[in-house]
């Protein structure tokens, strides 16, 4: 199993997410894996992709990854930087975003996400940061991509709080709520690529990353996993993809490691 030594599961996750993006996409980008994925896409097969960060920066092309959603490099390389109310009114609510990225502290099989609390909302065991832009990203973007590392704590049968709505109880639940957008259409983990079943909307594994087994996917997931009848293997990262990602991360490390206020 030497191939696994060539790249980490996190790298595979980021690169698989990058591949799902195209030149014409307008992405609402969050910090972390989504930001890395979007910029790898931009630096490889999708040079004209539009990246938008909720700080108001539209069409950014950072040469290093931002550490926060509002780093200076995003503004400096953007086509334009607008106010945050404008960002949420004209750009997100206006329906201009093709792909919104979300992460999750807890995720269920229908793509519903919790990043608000563990336990009861009013007496939480753990108070998480909250939803930020997620409630409306989940409903205003044409599609939502979710990235997360698989753990039984994170991928759960029932989430403690509906921070953002995926497919609800499945089926046509979005339609019933009057939501016109597609919702979660892709889940990319460190182990696999999942897509919602066209009818039930339950996330189904459609592609396993190289070296990953069905058991490992089930062991790190809190619900009974469904696998596609036509299960594929995710092509491992190409040299270009991996080099682009690693160079980006090295540049990032160098840029952000050096400075410290006195």
């Amino acid at each position: 199993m030497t191939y696994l030594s060539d790249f980490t599961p996190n790298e595979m996750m980021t690169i698989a997410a990058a591949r799902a993006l195209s030149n014409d996409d307008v992405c609402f980008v969050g910090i972390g894996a989504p930001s890395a994925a979007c910029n790898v896409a931009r630096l490889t097969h999708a040079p004209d992709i539009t990246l938008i960060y909720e700080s108001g920066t539209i069409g950014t092309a950072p040469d290093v990854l931002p550490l926060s959603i509002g780093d200076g490099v995003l503004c400096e390389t953007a086509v334009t930087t607008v106010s945050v109310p404008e960002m949420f009114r004209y750009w997100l609510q206006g329906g201009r975003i093709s792909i919104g990225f979300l992460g999750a502290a807890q995720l269920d099989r229908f793509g519903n996400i919790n990043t608000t609390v563990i336990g009861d909302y009013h007496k939480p065991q753990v108070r998480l940061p909250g939803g930020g832009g997620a409630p409306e990203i989940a409903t205003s973007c044409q599609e939502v991509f979710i990235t997360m590392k698989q753990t039984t704590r994170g991928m759960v049968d029932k989430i403690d709080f509906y921070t953002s709505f995926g497919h609800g109880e499945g089926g046509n639940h979005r339609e019933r709520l009057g939501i016109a957008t597609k919702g979660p259409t892709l889940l990319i983990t460190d182990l696999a690529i999942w897509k919602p079943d066209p009818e039930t909307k339950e996330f189904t594994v459609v592609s396993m990353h190289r070296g990953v087994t069905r058991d490992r996917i089930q062991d790190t997931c809190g619900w009974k996993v469904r696998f596609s009848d036509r299960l594929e293997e995710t092509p491992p990262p190409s040299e270009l993809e991996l080099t682009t990602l690693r160079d980006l991360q090295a540049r990032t490390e160098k840029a952000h490691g050096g400075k410290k206020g006195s």
Partner: protein
Amino acid sequence: MAKFQSLQEAVAENLRDGDTVAFEGFTHLIPHAAAHEVIRQGRKDLTLIRMTPDIIYDQLIGMGLARKVIFSYAGNPGVGLLRRMRDAIENNWPRAIETEEHSHAAMANAYEAGAAGLPCAVFRGYRGAGLKDVNPMIRSITCPFTGEELAAVPAHRPDVTFIHAQKANRRGDVLVEGIVGVQKEAVLASKRSVVTVEEIVEDFDDLHPNLCVLPHWTVTSVVQVPGGAHPSYTHGYYDRDNAAYLEWDKISADRDLFTAWMRENVLEAGPDVFAARVKGL
């Protein structure tokens, strides 16, 4: 009409116990120096509004100044959780705090509505989201043309808004540039506003006409505090001190360490220390 004041005077004159107050800044231009002065003056029972409460709200809450927080994302940006805020919510330390939680879209719209003099903001939001079930300040309104149900939240109308900006001119007009966030709206929505700036220049004659300028008559107090956003950054002046954000994760993890750090770096310091903190950034 903007007054030019010291930070101490500006806080003393504008912020009262029990006030509703916004310190805004979206990663960029966070008014750290102003928040520290508020902590030194020990205002009580504040209701804090902010889209992204981060280190300064962790500090205000940890020092027991806050009664309530209205927010949409409480995290140390790029690092993790806000440990002092968590401690207050989970363990009532140093006191219990109420929370009123929204989405970013709701908060941004609520500032916009406040600036626009409206009683509430109307937007398409919260569909299927849990917050509307736990926050009675999230209601709905029906479009009289299409019948579509839209979300409504109360407009933000802070008693005082604090922001940090690049510069003011001698009349007191204020320039904000780069990532402008919700600062203009937060100032226009507030009854009083205090703006700390990196520098004061003679005039703005060479500025592009469409930049974000707050005319002097919309601002209550202008205070020059070079470095006043540190460890946040000021576009055109200094970069973000990412290491300080990482460090905060450790400081804030422990009540005693936090208390000692606040004494040394806030209670026993003054606005003048900020200029030195941004050297080399």
